[in-house]
């Protein structure tokens, strides 16, 4: 008993030390602002995806009607074109907003100026409006990484000037709204000047260059190897009680968002869908929550231990909507090798099997953004543009694979719990 307590303590100590070492990364303002800013785009992506859902609604007569009436179809495309086609503009605003608030600034003007800087960098209007320049080329997902860089730099410039007091101060008595607008003037001029100088005077095609560089990085981060490592690591973090999805999102969310938007754009123009690894691919990795714990919840409700039965019931309802903290923490999976090991194995297997199903062409890569709290089979059906085979993959990864792996683990853990309960009397 004493020995057990000592081992537990060292484990906890090591973990605490490790988490504290990691904490600055989680709190790193730039990385966190990017992640939160991209997460804020989700509603826009879902709104735009309604166009796709309507246009591809799998009823033959409807599809024939659209083919015969392209003007109707082009009207339905509008929400999609505006949300996905201007994705990077929205991103330059939402990311700047997050960083400005983290820097303790009133976020309105920094966000607006970030948008100004991004448009200047990505598409300067050189002649009269609409005559020259590169209208919209980098406003869709291809400018996403440029938007990230530009918004972070422009907020930092703004923050620097405000904190140094290099702003126009209005005399007291001037209404706050007007005073705030004047605060933004000098930073705004400077940000605009800098963006203009780089893009127009020096004629550096920043956005094009970023696309060039990323054409080497994004594909590497979107491979099976990258996905398998990231997802397995995410599961490992959960077994230490750390939110794995948020953690890998710090690095991967720009890749996921970029890939999802690229997939949607490809589907819209009738091209083959390029990327397997997106936010939506994770539907098959973590169906019912990380570790695919829904089958475990079903086993738990039939356990002979009353405590485990209670955890099972607590876990089933949120589990259907892909929330499983009751199972992860209540059973518990965390710091419990008996359940932590299958938790990690299932995540790895789900990633691998789902990837294989995509590679052999059994399932179409997902391209329609939908809320992750939808029950997995429905979510899989919608996000693939009504591909019924995605439901098969969803059932396989939500129930069959984890159902097999969880069973022996559940029996082993139940035996231990019952023994302890008997000892306790």
């Amino acid at each position, binding site marked *: 008993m004493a020995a057990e307590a000592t081992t537990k303590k060292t484990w906890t100590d090591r973990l605490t030390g490790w988490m504290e070492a990691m904490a600055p990364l989680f709190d790193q303002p730039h990385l966190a602002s990017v992640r939160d800013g991209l997460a804020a785009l989700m509603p826009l992506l879902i709104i735009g995806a309604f166009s796709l859902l309507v246009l591809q609604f799998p009823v033959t007569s409807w599809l024939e009607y659209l083919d015969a009436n392209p003007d109707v179809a082009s009207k339905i495309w509008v929400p999609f074109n505006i949300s996905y086609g201007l994705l990077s503009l929205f991103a330059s605003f939402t990311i700047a907003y997050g960083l400005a608030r983290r820097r303790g600034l009133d976020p309105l003007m920094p966000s607006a100026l970030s948008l100004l800087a991004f448009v200047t960098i990505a598409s300067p209007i050189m002649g009269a409006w609409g005559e020259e320049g590169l209208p919209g080329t980098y406003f869709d997902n291809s400018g996403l990484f440029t938007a990230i860089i530009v918004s972070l730099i422009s907020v930092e410039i703004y923050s620097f000037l405000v904190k140094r007091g290099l702003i126009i101060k209005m005399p007291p008595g001037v209404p706050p709204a007007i005073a705030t607008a004047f605060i933004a003037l000098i930073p705004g001029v400077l940000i605009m000047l800098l963006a203009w100088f780089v893009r127009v005077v020096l004629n550096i095609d920043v956005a094009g260059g970023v696309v060039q560089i990323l054409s080497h990085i994004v594909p590497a981060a979107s491979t099976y190897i990258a996905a398998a490592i990231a997802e397995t690591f995410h599961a490992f973090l959960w077994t230490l009680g750390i*939110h794995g999805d948020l953690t890998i999102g710090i690095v991967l969310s720009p890749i996921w968002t970029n890939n999802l938007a690229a997939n949607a754009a490809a589907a819209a123009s009738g091209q083959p869908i390029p990327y397997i690894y997106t936010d939506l691919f994770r539907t098959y990795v973590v169906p019912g929550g990380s570790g695919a714990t829904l089958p475990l919840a079903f086993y738990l409700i039939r356990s002979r231990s009353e405590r485990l039965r209670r955890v099972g019931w*607590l876990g089933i309802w*949120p589990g259907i909507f892909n929330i499983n903290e009751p199972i992860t*923490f209540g059973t518990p999976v965390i710091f419990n090798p008996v359940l932590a090991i299958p938790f990690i194995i299932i995540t790895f297997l789900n990633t691998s099997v789902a990837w294989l199903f995509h590679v052999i062409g059994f399932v179409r890569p997902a391209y329609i953004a939908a809320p992750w709290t939808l029950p997995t089979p429905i979510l899989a059906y919608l996000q693939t543009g009504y591909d019924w085979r995605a439901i098969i993959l969803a059932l396989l990864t939500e129930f069959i694979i984890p159902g097999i792996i969880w069973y022996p683990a559940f029996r082993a853990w139940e035996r231990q719990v019952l023994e302890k309960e008997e000892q306790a009397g």
Partner: protein
Amino acid sequence: MAKYRVLLVCAAGMSSSLLEVAVIEAARRQGDEVEIEAISVPQVAVFDFAAHRPDIVLIGPQVRYKERSVRQLAEPLGVVVEVIDPVTYGMVDGDRIYQQIVQALMGRREEDRP
């Protein structure tokens, strides 16, 4: 009858809504009242602790790594910060979390609050 203002910090503000109901119920059984606001991790950095002045901040175990930054923001204002025990959290054990709130705030409510 005691009244407590609690700020709950978790990942997406979803699993903690289960907890919210359980803790409010547990307090009601004791004849007390608890007011809970749940926020997600990204909101912590921008949450106005001074304006909201919760009595206590409870941090979900899956976002424990936020403990230090929450302490830096909340403790200068006399707000107690605690992490919820993982199993208690998983079992959605409202009674035990309510006990944790009462114990953490015991004796410090009257004198500390202006």
